[in-house]
């Protein structure tokens, strides 16, 4: 069974739309159709347009007129470098901080609100920047347990699996249709409209800095985030804020204001940790409550020295020992004038960050071999791993 055959079977038996869902969608469309037929807008739309057969793929995210008129702005960059000794690989020289930092986060008085206030102050001190594209470089990883293992096994030596880490470079820009668009790989892989928060480039750039209107926007965005949990308020708002501040072209002033909104949310906790590339970090996180989606929490990592944002993580709230399901570490951000340009100080060939294959108290991370499809195969393979039989696939 090849890879595509297996993939085609995944969720293939999902049911189709129910009659109620189809009727609801169709009725919504018919309402729009009726409105169009009644309105003058409908008559305007009736004017035939000349055929415009496109012969080459359209890069929807680059407004030609704007590109021609664009002033090439000087590239601004903020490069965040690893500060811990666990990370021997070199990072860009344009470091904001280097070397071990004082563990200020061990201060018991440093609550989540205090950390976020410090992060807000740090963001407010940064100079604003702009450019046609917002560039980010980050490391990303995700890990998980086999479906056949109970969560309780994860801390007892059972194997877990992982994806990544991978280095990601992304350029976010303003699409012709107003949406936030993203390119990966220097214009070679245009991903089209993209925004975790659902906001456009213009909306992100126009977010207010005043607390009341910003809080209202965050609350409104949070309503639609977890539709199955309509009473998930603070938890969803914290996640929205995480989406708005992470890999997002907002101004430092808005970033500061968002941290202040977050500081006012109940249930925020703080702890010390190390981020994906070995940097000491203050972790601000929120666990789900009874009204929130279970078993998934969110965290933001800040530098304990500068309180700048280092990254974000998704955490399994049910697992205390090894809770991180996936995380990202920001290595560099900055505004540039093209989707192939790197901010000053960013290496053209980034060196991979240092990775170990184990963490204290956590299971090794194992790649599932190709060809294991059935539970029986997986069970036999897992058993062989545990008893030292068969080839170990750890890297």
């Amino acid at each position: 069974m090849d890879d595509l055959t297996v993939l085609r079977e995944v969720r293939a038996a999902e049911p189709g739309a129910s009659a109620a869902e189809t009727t609801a969608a169709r009725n919504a469309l018919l309402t729009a159709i009726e409105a169009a037929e009644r309105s003058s807008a409908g008559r305007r739309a009736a004017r035939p347009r000349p055929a415009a057969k496109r012969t080459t793929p359209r890069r929807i995210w680059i407004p030609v007129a704007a590109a021609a008129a664009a002033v090439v702005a000087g590239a601004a960059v903020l490069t965040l470098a690893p500060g811990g000794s666990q990370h021997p690989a070199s990072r860009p020289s344009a470091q904001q901080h280097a070397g071990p930092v004082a563990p200020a986060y061990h201060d018991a008085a440093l609550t989540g609100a205090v950390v976020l206030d410090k992060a807000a102050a740090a963001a407010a001190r940064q100079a604003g920047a702009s450019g046609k594209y917002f560039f980010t470089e980050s490391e990303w990883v995700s890990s998980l347990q086999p479906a056949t293992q109970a969560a309780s096994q994860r801390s007892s030596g059972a194997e877990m699996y992982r994806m990544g880490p991978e280095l990601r470079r992304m350029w976010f820009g303003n699409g012709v249709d107003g949406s936030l668009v993203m390119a990966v790989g220097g214009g070679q892989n245009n991903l089209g409209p993209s925004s975790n928060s659902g906001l456009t480039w213009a909306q992100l750039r126009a977010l207010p800095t005043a607390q009341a209107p910003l809080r209202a926007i965050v609350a409104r965005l949070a309503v639609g985030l977890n539709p199955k949990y309509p009473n998930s308020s603070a938890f969803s708002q914290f996640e929205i804020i995480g989406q708005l501040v992470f890999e997002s072209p907002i101004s430092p002033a808005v970033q500061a204001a968002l941290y202040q909104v977050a500081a006012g949310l109940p249930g925020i906790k703080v702890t010390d940790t190390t981020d994906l590339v070995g940097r000491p970090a203050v972790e601000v996180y929120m666990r789900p409550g009874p009204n929130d989606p279970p078993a998934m929490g969110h965290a933001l990592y800040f530098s304990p020295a500068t309180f700048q944002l280092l990254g974000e993580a998704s955490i399994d709230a049910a697992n205390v020992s090894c809770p991180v399901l996936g995380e990202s570490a920001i290595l560099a951000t900055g505004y540039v004038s093209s989707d192939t340009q790197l901010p000053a100080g960013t290496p053209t060939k980034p060196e991979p960050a240092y990775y170990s294959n184990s963490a204290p108290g956590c299971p090794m991370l194992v790649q599932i071999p190709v060809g294991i499809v059935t539970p029986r195969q997986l069970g036999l393979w897992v058993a062989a791993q545990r008893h030292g039989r068969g080839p170990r696939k750890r890297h």
Partner: protein
Amino acid sequence: MDDVLTDRELMERSIVSPASFAEVFDRHHGELYHYLRRRAGPSLAADIAAETFLTAFARRDRYRPDGQSVRPWLYGIAHNLLRKHSRSERRQWLAYARHGEMPDVDHSAADAFGSADSRADATAAAARIGPILAGLPAGDRDVLLLYAWADMSYADIASTLQIPVGTVRSRLNRARRQLRGGTELQPMNPVIGGSRG
């Protein structure tokens, strides 16, 4: 008897006769919904599928056909909407990999796995494929799933995602390499966790 109108003809007719667009819905909603449900779960699928057709209707005068089918255009709109929920989709895939089903799947949906054997196989496949899909760059995942689940040609995928055909090919190759066993993956990485209280 009149010949059946092509999608392109329906779209053109809907400019002067908006009600014609209802036929576009009838032709494509079911398939699009199913694709979205596989990707994002039932609640998001219903909303995104409905919004796709509302958006398509509102923008029907901007439709520029690449062929006789409106399908790539509709899927392109759906992907734009889906991408707003990319973080949610990553969460869904991680949950799927852990539990073998999307977190918001109800029992009737879970029963769609059919026999016990097929459910078991699906769980095992999920354990391997879920994390791979969750870890793919969004663009690679889009190409892979349009190819495997929507049975689209390279040209239709290119039209859907507004990218060159060569990019479709390179993304698909890269995604399939990941799918075949992570041969391009970096060395293992620890899951580093703090002492959360």
